[in-house]
C-alpha cells in the first residue's frame, strides 16, 4: 500500500528523517514509536504532502505523493487540533468533511451512529463550537472525522494522548476493528508502548530519523520495547 524509498528530510544540515526502505502492506495496523524528535510527525507530514521530502519518495497505492494529489480521496488523517475548524459545531464539521469526501448527510449520520459509545454523549448535540470543547473531546471529534468516507489509509498522530482511560480502551477497539475487518491500513504513532503493542501488528522504532527496529508484534514485544527505551537492552 505504502512504499517508502530513500526518503530523507533535512533542515539545513540536520537530517530529521532518513528512511531507506519501508513498505506497509494493505490492511496492516502499523505503529510508530520513538522519543521526541525521532521523526514520527515528520514522516506523517510527508505522507500527507504537508512538507516536501529533501530526497526520495513515498508512493501510496502506486501514486507518487509529492507529485500527484490522487492519494487524497483514499487517505485521511488527524495529526493535531489544527485539523479542526474551531468555529463549527462537531456535527457541522463532520458534514463538511463528509462533503469533501463525497458523503451526504445520511452517510455521515450512519457512520456517527456507530460511535455513540466513543463520544460518550459529549460531542453530538452539545450546541457548542469545537473550539469550546475540551482537548480530549476535540481529539475524539478529530479522530472520528478521519474515519468519514471509507478511507483506505488512516493516519493518526498520538491518538491516545489526552484521552481518558475509557476512551482509550474504546479507541483501541475501533482501530483494531478497522484493520482486521475492513482492510484499512492504519498508521498510528504513540509514546505509550502498551497501547501500540495492544493495537498494532507491526511496530517500527525510529531514532533520530532512522529505523532501528522493525518488529512483528508478539508476546515479547512490549518487554523488548521497554528494555530498548530504558536503555538496558542486551545486544
Amino acid at each position, binding site marked *: 500500500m505504502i512504499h517508502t524509498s530513500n526518503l530523507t528530510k533535512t533542515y539545513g544540515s540536520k537530517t530529521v528523517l532518513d528512511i531507506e526502505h519501508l513498505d506497509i502492506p494493505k490492511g496492516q495496523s502499523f505503529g510508530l514509536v520513538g522519543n521526541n524528535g525521532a521523526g514520527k510527525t515528520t514522516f506523517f507530514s510527508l505522507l*500527507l504532502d504537508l*512538507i516536501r521530502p529533501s530526497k526520495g519518495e513515498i508512493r501510496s497505492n502506486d501514486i507518487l505523493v509529492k507529485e500527484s494529489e490522487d492519494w487524497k480521496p483514499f487517505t485521511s488523517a488527524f495529526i493535531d487540533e489544527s485539523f479542526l475548524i*474551531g468555529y463549527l459545531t462537531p456535527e457541522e464539521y463532520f458534514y463538511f468533511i463528509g462533503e469533501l469526501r463525497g458523503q451526504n448527510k445520511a452517510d455521515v449520520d450512519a457512520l456517527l451512529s456507530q460511535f455513540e459509545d466513543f463520544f460518550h454523549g459529549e460531542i453530538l448535540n452539545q450546541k457548542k463550537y469545537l473550539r469550546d470543547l475540551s482537548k480530549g473531546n476535540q481529539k475524539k471529534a478529530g479522530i472520528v472525522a478521519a474515519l468519514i468516507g471509507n478511507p483506505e489509509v488512516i493516519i493518526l498522530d498520538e491518538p491516545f494522548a489526552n484521552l481518558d482511560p475509557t476512551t482509550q480502551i474504546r479507541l483501541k477497539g475501533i482501530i483494531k476493528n478497522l484493520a482486521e475487518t475492513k482492510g484499512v491500513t492504519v498508521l498510528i504513532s504513540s509514546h505509550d508502548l502498551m497501547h501500540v503493542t495492544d493495537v498494532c501488528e507491526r511496530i517500527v522504532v525510529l531514532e533520530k530519523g532512522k529505523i532501528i527496529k522493525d518488529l512483528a508484534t508478539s508476546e515479547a514485544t512490549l518487554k523488548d520495547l521497554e528494555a530498548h527505551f530504558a536503555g538496558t537492552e542486551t545486544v
Partner: protein
Amino acid sequence: MIVTKCVLILLIEETNSKRMKIKHFINLEWKQYFRSAYWQKSMALNVLLVFVALYFVVTFLALGIALYPILKETFPEQDPLVIVNSYLFYWFLADVIMRFFFQKLPVMSVKPLLTLPIKRSKVVHYVLGKSGFSFFNFLPLFAFVPFGVMLIINGYPITSVIFWVIAIFVITLVINFLNFIIESLSSETELSYLPIILFAGGLFAINYFDLISFTNLVSNAVSSIYETPLLIAIPVLVLIGLYLVNFGKLKKQLYLDSSLKAKAQEVKASNLEWTRKFGDAAPFMQLDLKLIWRNKRPRSSVFILVIGLLYGLFFYPNPVYQDMPWMFAFVGIFVTGIFLINFGQFIPAWDSGYYKMLMSQNIKYKQYLKSKYTLMAVSVVILFILSIPYVYFGWKILLAHFAAAVYNIGVNTHVMLLGGSFNRKKIDLNQRAAFNYQGTGAVQWLIGIPLMALPLAIFGASYYFFSFEIGCLVLTILGVIGIVFHQKLMNLITEKYLDSKYKMIQAFSQDN
C-alpha cells in the same frame, strides 16, 4: 519623554531587585519579531515600511522648520504660535483616529510568563511602558522640536517654549493611552469602529457647531502652560491617571480564565442550503459564511460595510467635488469594494488555523478559491445596488460606480486572490478578548494602495485625455476582460497557491 523615562527607571530598579531584568522581556520581544516567518519572508514589505516611516519623518521635519517662516509670511499680523495653538485640536483629533487604525497595543505572549515568578504588575508595566516608545509618539516631535527651535531663534522665551513642546509631547502620550482604552472598548463590544467614530465625530461636531469650542479650549490650555509652566502638572496627572486605568484594565485581563472564559455561546445553526446554487464551491461558501459570522475578527469586516457605504456622503454633497468627476471612480471602487478589500486582504489567512487539514483533504484548490471569489463578487454586486441612491447627486456618479463595480469584479477580485498567495501571516480566530485588537497593521493598508491607486490612475488618465464617459468605459472594459478570462486567471492563481503551499503551511503553523 521624561515621564516614560521615569516609568522605565522605576521599572528597571524594581525588576532588578527581583532579579528579573527588563532585558529578558526585551530579549523575548526581539526574538519573537525576528524569528517569525513573517519577518523573514517579507523583507520587501519591511523595507517599504521603513521608507514610509522615513518619508513621514522627513515631511514632519520640513514642516517643523518651514512652518514658522510660512506662517509669518502669510499672516504677518498674527503670532505663529497662536495660530499653531488654534489648530492643535484638529491635530490631536487626527492623532486619535490615526492611532486607532494603525497602532496596536504591543502584545507580548504573556501566557507562558504567568506561571513564572514574575509579578503580574511587572508584565503589565512592561507592555504599557513599551507602548511609550511607539513611532507615533515620536513622530510629532520631529515637527514640534524644530518649530520650537525656530520660536527660540525668533526671540520667544526659552523656558516657555520648552514647556510648550513638553506639553505637546505629554498630550501625545495621553492620546497614546487613551487610544488603548478606546480600542479595548471597541474590542470588548461588537461595535468595531463605532466607538472611535462616535468619539471623534462627536468631538468634531460639538466643536463645529460651537456647542463647546474645543479649538479654543485646547488652544487656551496650551497657551496657559506656555505662560505658566507649572500647569504642565495637569496633563502629567491626566497621563498618570490614564496609565493607571490602562494598568488596571490589562491586569484584570491577565488571568487565564478571564481571557479563556468560555462564554457558553449558544450555537445558532442556520441552514445555508441556498449556497447549493454555487455548485461544487458550496461547502466552502457555507464555511466562509460561518467563518464571517462566528468570529469576531472577520465579523468586523461586515460592520465596516456600513461605513464604506456611507463613505460617498463625505464627497458627493460637497460642491467642491462635483467639479472633480475623477474622484467618483475612486469613491466607487471604495464603496462597492469595501468588503472585497477587507475580506480579501486576509485570504487565505482566515483559514490559517486549519490550513494543514484543508491541504490534506480531498479538495481542489480551485473550488476553495472559487468560493472566495464568488463571495467577493457577490458583495460587490450587492454594494453597488445599495449605492444606487447616490444617483441623487448626479447620474455621473451612478455611471462611475457601475464602472468601478465591474472593475472590482473583473480585476480587483483577482488581484486580491493573487495577493493572498503571498500571505504568510497567521490569523488566530480563536483568540479571545485579551490583547486581541483588530490586527489590521499598516502592512495590510499598504497592500490596499495598488488596488485603489491603479484604477484611479487609469480613470484619471483617460478622463484627462478624453472624457469622463471614456474613463468609465475603460474601467468597464478592463473589468469585462477580467470576467471573460476568469477561468484562465483562476488557473494561474491556483498555480501560484500550489507553488507556495509548503511555505504557507509552515508559516501558518507558527504561533506568531
